[in-house]
Each structure stands twice: as C-alpha cells, then as structure tokens.
C-alpha cells in the first residue's frame, strides 16, 4: 500500500496545506468537528489531488488542472452583497424561497426567511457547526459511502452553507432556491457544505444555482447532502453557470430511505472545469431515484459528471440519463456506476449517456458500469456519441429551414429531453430558455 502514498508536492497541493493550516483555527465547529476535519484533511495529504490514475478521476486530472490553491474567500463586503442582489438570474423572479450564499457565506439579509412554512427550518451551516450538533458532525461524516479526495477537502475546509430541515409529513409547496453567487472580485476559493434533512413523508423541491460574476479566477468546492426519509419526495435541480476561468467541484450525497422518490437534474453551461459528482444510496425498499443531467459546452470547457448509485435494498428503481452537447474544443465526461448489493433483489436500474458533438475538436468520454451482486435484477446501460444527423438536417432544410436553424432545432430536441422531465413548470421553462439562449450564441 505504501506505493499509493504520494506526498503532496505540487504548488496547488502545497497551497492547500497552507490554506488549511492558516484557516483551521477559524473554521466553525467544536472539537468533534475539528477532528472530522483533521481526519478528512489527512485523507488528502496521504493521496494528494486525484490524478488520472484514480479511476473516478480518470478523465479529470485534478492535479494537472488545478494549478494553484486560492485562499479561502473573505466574507462578502457591502459591494459583494450589492453584486449578489439579483442572485439566481431569471429564476429569482419566480417566487421561490431564495437563500443567497455569496462567495461561500450565507447572507441572511439577501435571503427570504420570512414566513417559513410550518415544519421548515433554515439555518446557516456556520452557525449550526458552531453549536456542534451531533446531526452535523454526522452530516460531515460518511452517511453515504464516498471515498473521495475532493469531498474530503470539502469536509476539511467548508466554512458555511445552509442547513434545512423539513419535518415528517410536511409538504413544502414553494420551491427553495439555493443561490450561490461568486463575485469574482479577487481570486478565491469558496468551500461550502449544505445539509438537507427531509423527514418521513416530507416533500420539497430545491433549485440550486451557481453563478460567477467577476473576472477573477476562482475555485468552488461545494457539497450538498440530502438525507431523505422514508416515503419522502424530493426534487433537486442544480444549474451551474460559473465564470469562464472558474473550477467548480460539486458533490451531491443522497441517502434515500424506503418508498421515497428522489429526482435530480444537473444543468451545466459555465465554468472552465466543472466536476459534478453524485453519490446516491438507496437504503430502503421500494424507492425510486431518477438522476438526469445536461451539459452544454463550448470553447475549451471541461465538464465531468461522475456518479455512483448504490442499491442496498430490494425492489428499488433507478434511472440515469446524462446528455452533453459539445462544441468547439470542449470535452464532456460521464462516468456512472450502478452497484447492486446482494440483498437488493428485484432492482430495476438503467443508465444511459449520450453525447452530441458539434465540431471536430469536441470530445466526449462515457463510461457506464454495472456491479451486481444480486441474482434477480434488471439492469442495463448504454452510451452513444455522435454528430448531428445529416439526413435529419437535410429533411428540415428541404422544408425551407435554414441550416443554422435546422441545427438549432435538432440540438434543442436532443437537449430538451432531459429538461422536459422537470415537473415544476417554471423551472422547466427557465431551463428550456437557457438551452435556447445557449444555442443563440452559435448563430
């Protein structure tokens, strides 16, 4: 095993050691949490940043891509808060309960905390950590199996985020919007951790947006943990539109109980390097999980979605559909692994990834995998990569539709399939518009 131990040595790795050493005293949380952080950081120190030799990071060599470690972002000043007033863009106008996180800090005065529904609580993660609650030291730990260096760094360095709880049998009708804004006024790292706990039979819809404003390069490491009780229903949509130079690493952890439903959508358009990793554990019987994602990439963007879905209980169903539209010299990566444990009989799991390449320089890598230990299951996966269909394009043009418009129609059709499954109408429409506006840049 000693061969696997590779001391930190790159500028970014050494920088992270400096960042942690400097910041650790000031990070929120008592001694239990400090111990969890120290252990997590040690995990990083032992292995360094993941390279292509780590299977889960095969196509996103973080050691190579991350040239330096930015200092943790300073708490937002008045100017930063002013910049973040319209956090969430068009989604902010839809009447959702907006919670605003500016440069990694939850900002109460920008957030809508008035008239919280009965059974809904919202707090800042920093505040909750400072109170050293067992829920949180647990929440920072491994409720979902996820042995990952980026997540370990998040655990070690997370300063703030939100903690949301929904009581059993409470249906929160109004979607909750976690609006992360990175002002980009100075090069900085924003490390946030959020926790959402939904009681048995609870229902809620979450939309999470990440957007960049300024010109400075920044690094985001954000994690969101869902603990979804039995018979609960959760919809979660994440839209990532970081600035051109940004590195965004997002981790979603979901622990899903019995007879529950978890629907998740990822929508990525911005950022230089975006890594979305999802670790989902179906821990109770009769649960349904749908994970879907769409990346629209251009120029030299690199977006990687890597997920593991673990079926630990019988009679569950999971579906994963991930699509990418890749233009210019961009690169899309999908790695998905479904694990079916021995006890998880009657599992029904299907995974599909499709990439549409719009230029010769575009690249897509897809690696779906199944790991099955039960003997009575229905599992399958597929992966396709292709260009726009010339026959279809000709058919549209033969009806008078100009070439660029014909292409846009076909790309829109390919991409919209993912978004059209979003049940909440105004979120769905906002993302359909976002597809159209992304396509607009090609004309």
């Amino acid at each position: 095993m000693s061969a696997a131990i590779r001391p930190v040595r790159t500028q970014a790795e050494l920088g992270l050691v400096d960042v942690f050493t400097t910041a650790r005293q000031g990070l929120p949380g008592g001694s239990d949490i400090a111990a969890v952080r120290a252990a997590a950081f040690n995990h990083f120190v032992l292995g360094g940043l993941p390279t292509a030799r780590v299977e889960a990071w095969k196509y996103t060599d973080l050691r190579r891509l991350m040239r330096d470690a930015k200092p943790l972002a300073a708490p937002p000043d008045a100017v930063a808060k002013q910049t973040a007033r319209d956090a969430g863009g068009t989604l902010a106008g839809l009447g959702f309960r907006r919670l605003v996180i500016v440069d990694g800090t939850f900002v109460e005065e920008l957030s809508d905390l008035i008239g919280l529904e009965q059974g809904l609580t919202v707090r800042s993660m920093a505040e909750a950590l400072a109170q050293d609650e067992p829920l949180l030291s647990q929440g920072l730990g491994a409720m979902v199996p996820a042995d990952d260096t980026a997540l370990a760094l998040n655990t070690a360095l997370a300063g703030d985020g939100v903690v949301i709880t929904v009581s059993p049998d409470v249906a929160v009708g109004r979607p909750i919007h976690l609006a992360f804004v990175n002002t980009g006024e100075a090069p900085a790292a924003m490390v946030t951790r959020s926790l959402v706990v939904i009681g048995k039979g609870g229902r809620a819809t979450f939309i999470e947006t990440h957007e960049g404003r300024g010109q400075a390069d920044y690094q985001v490491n954000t994690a969101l943990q869902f603990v979804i009780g039995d018979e609960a229903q959760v919809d979660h949509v994440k839209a990532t539109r970081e600035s051109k130079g940004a590195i965004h690493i997002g981790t979603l952890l979901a622990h899903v109980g019995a007879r529950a439903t978890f629907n998740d959508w990822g929508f990525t358009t911005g950022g230089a390097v975006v890594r979305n990793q999802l670790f989902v554990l179906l821990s109770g019987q009769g649960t349904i999980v749908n994970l879907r994602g769409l990346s629209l990439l251009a120029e030299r963007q690199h977006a990687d979605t890597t997920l593991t879905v673990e079926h630990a209980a019988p009679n569950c169903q999971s579906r994963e559909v991930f699509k990418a539209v890749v233009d210019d010299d961009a690169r899309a990566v999908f790695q998905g692994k479904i694990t079916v444990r021995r006890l998880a009989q009657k599992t029904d799991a299907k995974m599909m990834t499709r990439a549409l390449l719009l230029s010769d320089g575009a690249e897509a890598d897809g690696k779906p995998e199944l790991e099955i230990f039960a003997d009575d299951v229905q599992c399958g996966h597929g992966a396709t990569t292709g260009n726009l269909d010339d026959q279809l394009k000709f058919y549209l043009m033969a009806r008078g539709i100009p070439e660029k418009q014909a292409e846009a129609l076909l790309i829109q059709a390919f991409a919209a399939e993912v978004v059209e499954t979003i049940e909440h109408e105004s979120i769905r429409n906002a993302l359909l518009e976002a597809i159209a506006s992304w396509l607009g840049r090609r004309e």
Partner: protein
Amino acid sequence: MTPLLEIRGLRAEIAGRKILQGLDLRVDAGEIHAIMGPNGAGKSTLSYVLAGKPGYEITSGQILFKGEDLLAMAPDERAAKGVFLAFQYPLEIPGVATVTFLRTAVNAQRRKRGEEELSSPDLLKRVRELARKLGIDPEMLRRPLNVGFSGGEKKRNETLQMALLEPLLCVLDETDSGLDIDALKIVANGVNALRSSERGMIVITHYQRLLDYIVPDVVHVLAAGRIVKTGSKELAMELEATGYAQYQNVAA
C-alpha cells in the same frame, strides 16, 4: 414562356457511381409528369438532386427552375422558391413536435421570401383544417415529427406539409410505397386538390397503381439514368403489362 423546370443533360454521381447519365426533362406549370422505371434507374437520385441533398456530385448539365440555376441554391433556398420533395421515407425527428416543425418551416420560407410570418393561431387553424381533410388525428400534430407514425401516417403528413407550404413544383418520390389502398386514395385526393395551373408535379413511381388516382399528363420511362421514352398516360398501362425489361438495355 419560361418552363417551370428544365433539366438539361444532367449527369450525377454518388461516391463515384454514375447514376444520372444525361437526363433531359421539361415540366411546365399546370402539368403532371410521371416518371416510371425499374429499381436502380435513378428515380430517387433525381428527386434528391432536385431537392439538393448533399453527397451527390453533378458532373455536367443544369437544372433551371423558373429560369434560375437551381443547383446553385441550398436546399432551404430551393424550398423557399417553391420546390417540394415528398420523401419516400419521411424521417423521424424525436423531440421536435410536428406542429413546431410546421410553424418553423412555414415561417422560415415566408421570411426568406420577404413575407410576413404567420401568427401561431392562424397557422394552427390552417394546419387543423388540412389535417381534417387528410384524415390526420389532430393529436398527432403534437407528437414528435413522424415518431411512431405508421407508413400511411407519414405519407399523409408529407402531403399535409405539401399542402401547407404550397410549393410550385411537387416532387413525389414513391409516395405509394407502404400505403394500403385506402391510405393511397386519401393521399391521392390530397395531391389532386393541389393541382393548379401554376403548379407542376413530378410523380415518381415504380407501379402504375398510383397513376389510377393521380392521373398524369405525361409519362416518362427512366432507365439507366436517362429518359428513354415519353408518352401519354397510356404508356403507364403498357408498362404495367410489359414490365421494364425492354428498357433495361436501352441505355447501355
């Protein structure tokens, strides 16, 4: 008077294979021309070359549409000028609702011609009316274009597009293939409703059956990439009786 369509000495090949080998054809407005011929004669190639499908190389000859060089135009320009190809195998386009496709096509053509775009309600009204005449279930219009449509539904959908776009030259490529007799009659009625003194049609078919319902003014036999015989509608009957064997060697 300038003919609607004039093809002179057209030679076309695909991937080095010579398909059309000196084809001449003139279609005037108001006329229906049937083009019949054995498999592999170049019937579909002719229709694709008229519509501008990529992949065909024109090695000589020309196509004039109302006196303009058709070969210099992109497929969408040809459509806007009034050329319509009813496909032998209409394509399925998942994710594009039929009605969205129709609206996009109509308005793209209108824009190119400098006409005002049709409003959605006006267009929908027109589409519904045509759909009713062609026996198309209005629910189908909301479905993705041709996806899961039967052969007959696809051909009716092609006819609907043709009626909606009101082209000057209709090219029907084996419209009868895959149709039962009832569907054939409906499609033929739709086509016949478009007969007018301003419009010309080229009906490409292997069998005479279609021509019982769409009665041509002129019948041509296409063999080995050339028109080898031209006659009146009785020629189609003759072919039905004798087959194409006598023409197989004509061009060789």
